[in-house]
């Protein structure tokens, strides 16, 4: 039975995802006379020390009319062009994943195939050398893509942010749009069971009616779970000294014990994940809700999906979850089918993401036998190995370009390249590959250093200015 839409939408958990949802929902629903309430809970998750956002978060920021320069300023953040993965013993095996293509397509053949042929002929540098975003990131440079870059100006970017400051920023944004914080918490026995038709009673005795409850506590529930192929582990967060390469997130260690380092202004907090460790902070279960929307309750963020931090699932899922939800609100009927479609899309995205984490694990651990690997992953591996073909599926959040960089960077070298790449002569190929490198370097050299640009534009204050202040 549908509930009156005049009842408020209640967000359980004054968390980062809770405030982001509150801001978007208040912006959407307040003009329609529907209140958005945020209720803290005793068990709500803390904000991460630091976080990375994918390019898809820009869409949500635009919806909220937020200026990303202002977000970076307020959250001591920086712009990120990709992630450097150093997850094997040999530093030579490090590689970079960016949100942009490598080289350009020529004669209908993507750059990869020309590069593979050139590699066999001994004429090339590492694949990422031909990726403009990677080239800029390595030199700690940043600028948004623009038309003057020609075919290379198509990369995207994300942000590095202080998680606590970003959560506070989102809180202010949500309240600006009219979301209301309820000071009293919900009693701790109110939502631990089946939340399908939960009666919400606050500690002060007040009962809250709602049309939709959004579980944004950041705490994984214990039922209706699907498990990823990889076992979970523990998270440890700590502040750390700054590292270079401001435009790059760094993921270092081994595939079963790695740290994600996020360069912010002055510090680079580190999030360490240890698989199967006896942890003392936060346990990652590597599970997700098969039906994150059940009854009148939708779980989002960490309440819906609890995957390890590799490739940053948390911030990748939020735009998908919230956009899929926003398309449907407020209900005018058909709630059951909205629910089914939401669950189909999100649960599929969770599963695909866990698969990509598993793929990364397989590739980096150099597992030769792929017998137990799910069929869809085996197809990805076989097709790339066979001829460099990147197979993608519905609801995958990692771009095709990024998956290509992942497989190649992990050492999975295609046995063959497209035969059409044999058409140019060796001289023509050499000229094409070297001109690509020259163009990438020329554009890169014109781009400013990110730290200098942030200080020059006043987004970051310099040490000198801070002392004066």
């Amino acid at each position, binding site marked *: 039975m549908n509930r009156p839409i005049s009842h408020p939408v209640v967000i359980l958990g004054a968390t980062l995802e809770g405030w982001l949802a509150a801001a978007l929902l208040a912006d959407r629903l307040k003009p329609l006379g529907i209140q958005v309430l945020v209720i803290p809970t005793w068990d709500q998750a803390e904000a991460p020390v630091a976080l990375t956002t994918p390019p898809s978060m820009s869409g949500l920021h635009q919806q909220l009319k937020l200026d990303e320069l202002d977000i970076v300023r307020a959250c001591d953040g920086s712009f990120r062009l990709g992630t450097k993965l150093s997850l094997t013993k040999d530093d030579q095996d490090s590689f970079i994943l960016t949100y942009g293509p490598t080289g350009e397509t020529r004669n209908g053949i993507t750059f990869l195939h020309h590069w593979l042929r050139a590699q066999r002929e001994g004429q090339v540098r590492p694949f990422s050398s031909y990726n403009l975003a990677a080239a800029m990131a390595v030199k700690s440079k940043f600028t948004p893509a623009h038309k003057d870059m020609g075919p290379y100006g198509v990369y995207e970017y994300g942000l590095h942010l202080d998680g606590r400051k970003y959560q506070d920023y989102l809180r202010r944004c949500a309240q600006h749009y009219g979301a209301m914080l309820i000071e009293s918490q919900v009693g701790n026995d109110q939502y631990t069971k089946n939340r399908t038709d939960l009666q919400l009673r606050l500690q002060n005795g007040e009962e809250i009616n709602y049309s939709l409850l959004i579980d944004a506590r950041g705490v994984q529930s214990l039922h209706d779970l699907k498990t990823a192929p990889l076992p979970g582990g523990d998270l440890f967060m700590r502040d750390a000294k700054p590292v270079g390469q401001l435009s790059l997130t760094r993921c270092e260690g081994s595939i079963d014990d790695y740290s994600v380092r996020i360069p912010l202004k002055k510090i680079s907090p580190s999030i360490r994940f240890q698989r199967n460790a006896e942890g003392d902070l936060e346990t990652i279960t590597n599970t997700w809700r098969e039906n994150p929307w059940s009854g009148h309750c939708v779980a989002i963020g960490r309440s819906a999906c609890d995957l390890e931090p590799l490739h940053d699932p948390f911030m990748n899922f939020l735009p998908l979850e919230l956009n899929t939800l926003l398309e449907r609100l407020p209900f*005018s009927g058909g709630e059951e*089918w*909205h629910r089914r479609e939401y669950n189909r899309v999100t649960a599929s995205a969770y599963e695909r993401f866990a698969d990509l984490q598993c793929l990364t694990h397989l590739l980096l651990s150099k597992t030769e036998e792929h017998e137990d690997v799910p069929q869809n992953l085996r197809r990805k591996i076989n097709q790339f190995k066979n001829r460099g073909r990147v197979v993608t599926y519905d609801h995958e959040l990692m771009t095709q370009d990024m998956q290509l960089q992942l497989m190649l960077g992990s050492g999975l070298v295609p046995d063959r390249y497209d*035969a059409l790449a044999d058409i140019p002569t060796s001289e023509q190929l050499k000229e094409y590959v070297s001109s690509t490198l020259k163009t990438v370097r020329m554009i890169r050299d014109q781009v400013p250093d990110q730290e200098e640009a942030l200080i020059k534009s006043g987004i970051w204050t310099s040490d000198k200015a801070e002392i004066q202040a």
Partner: protein
Amino acid sequence: MARADQPVDEVVIVGGGTAGWMTAAALSKLIAPIGVRITLIESDAIGTVGVGEATLPHLKFFNDRLGINETHFMAETQATIKLGIEFRNWGRKDDAYIHPFGDYGREIAGVDFHHYWLRAHKEGLAGRIDDYSLPIQMAEKSRFSPPSPDPQSVMSAFSYAYQMDATRYAGFLRRFAEANGVFRQEGKIVSVHQDHETGDISSVELKSGQKIEGDLFIDCSGFRGLLIENALQAGYEDWSDVLPCDRAIAVQCKNMEPPVPYTRATAYQSGWQWRIPLQHRMGNGHVYCSAYISDDEAASLLMDNLEGKPTTDPRFLRFQTGRRRKQWDRNVIAVGLSAGFLEPLESTSIYLIQAAITNMVELFPRQGVTQADIDEFNDVMNLEYERVRDFLVLHYHATERDDSPFWNDVRTMNIPDSLRYKMSVFENTGEVVKYKDGLFLDASWIAVYLGQRVVPHHFSSLAKNGSREQLGTMMQNLKQIITQTVDALPSHADYLRQHCPAAQVMAR
């Protein structure tokens, strides 16, 4: 034969016709430059089906990739412009709608236009949704001008396809392919030889006794699947439980009026009739289910409905809807009717040929055939066929017709779960279920749903934003912009005369 370590130097295409010559033309342009020789075997004594006179907009990309000049192509194939397909009598008798190659209205504040239309229609502020589609209005008024590349222009919201003489298209591509080095071998194949060890096809033998050897064989032999089925027995998956029509009759007639820029599919008691206007003649056909109507009755119905004098004798075709279980098996790739058959209701025959060619080129086994190539091709093509199947089944199942046993059967038949889910989501929310790799996009599904009375019980609440007056004004303005734009365009006939006049020929 070719295995993983044996390069493909010789490609043999078995069969001409649309599939054979499209394959030959594409390979001659895209694969021959890497040193692959291409031979096409066909016999003048064996006729071709001439599949797919009506096409989808994708054909333009195919021609463009081959560097084919559009004006030249249209003139050579007596082609007209196609902006969509008109469906008559499908939801109910006397219903009519056009499935356009373009969008309805424009998204407003992140909400798809059809939600606003649903509200406006409910409140009596809007008539047909067709009034808010530029390609439909162009089709109905028989006007045309190419789309604008400016995304801000109202003229950017559509694409177009062609209605053409498929036999002439095959001939046109034959000249193109031969000019690019394809060798055409005249002859009838009487036997197929397989390698004793591997089971691969090693050669085909002609009636003359000549043997043609090859490393890779493309089976374009039509329904019979000379190599893929007769020799390799790849198997066939029968879909006649959901697409029960199994016969067709084709006949050409004279044009009685200037050709219109759309195809028409009119439903009758036990099937449907196509009408495809070309520059020099009209293509007609009746697709029907032999369990409910005899061949003679079907032929009479078709001939009675012709608008002009017939210029050919009726040709009878038999088919079984479905797909080959393995469209690539060993060193044989099936393309066209040998790969499967889905009736021409949405003009997908040439598209499916094109999809097979595109994937074949991407996976071309120059250095030798691998199982990974075979598996990938089959996975991709299986998905193509399944998604087209669902869309076709929708046309039969989403009907209120109960005036014949045929319609009672298809209206109440079991449909694939994938389609049932899509229909339920639309009926209950107004949302179109989205997939990454679907041939038909949102506007296509909306056209058929609404055109066949699958009307959502609900629509997006955000479409309720704004007053009744604001909504009425918005709908009125949009309709007016589209009307004014279309009225300023040249007629379709004038466009053809000015840009791609075909030679005056006697209708065949």
